């Protein structure tokens, strides 16, 4: 899966994009977030409070319980502030 980060999520993690292998333990977006948080450091900070994060799978807004599949594009970002 291709995982993208935007705004302060990107800044805390220190990168904008990475590949994470899809695995049975990463069934949902929330599980992927927990997996990334467990890396600690910037990841720990970025994923400390999931209520502050929004997520999209394949460029569509979804919730943390959305189910993942191999090849998905998953993006984590703060609530949007455009316009």
């Amino acid at each position, binding site marked *: 899966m291709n995982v*993208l980060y*935007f*705004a*302060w999520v990107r800044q805390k993690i220190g990168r904008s994009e990475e590949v994470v292998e899809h695995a049975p333990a990463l069934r949902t977006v929330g599980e992927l977030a927990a997996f990334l948080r467990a890396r600690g450091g910037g990841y720990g900070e970025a994923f400390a409070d999931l209520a502050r994060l929004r997520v*999209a799978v394949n*460029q*569509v*807004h979804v919730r943390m319980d959305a189910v993942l599949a191999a090849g998905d594009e998953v*993006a984590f*970002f*703060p*609530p*949007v*502030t*455009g*316009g």
Partner: protein
Amino acid sequence: MTTNIHIQAEDFDVGEEIEALTADQVQAGAVASFVGLVRGGDGLAALTLEHYPGMTEREIAKIAAEAQARWRLGGITVIHRVGRLAVGARIVLVAVAAAHRGSAFQACEFLMDYLKTRAPFWKQEDRGAGSEWVEARPSDDDAAERWRKR
């Protein structure tokens, strides 16, 4: 009905965009539009706009299709700039052509409310001393929410 969606670093010409929207449409009696600018104050020097390429265009296209389904519109133009924008710079244009003013105003406000809450843009404020990400405002969520109840 034409929908023009542009995400760009460049500035845009509001008059030209509004004119283009009704150029071939004698049925359009009304164009409502909105221009958002970088508002100064509190030492703000500039905003930097980041977005999610691809998803941004898709989300705006969805919002535009929803507006078209709710009101009979002659055309929609949405232009949103990205990158570094100084105080006073234009950020966004939403323009809607319709036969009558009620539909044009409502659709324009609807588009802005949804753009604010669904399109993946993020603003960073540059105050010279450092930069800070803008927090989403609950009032924007409320503004978008009111369209659900109708």
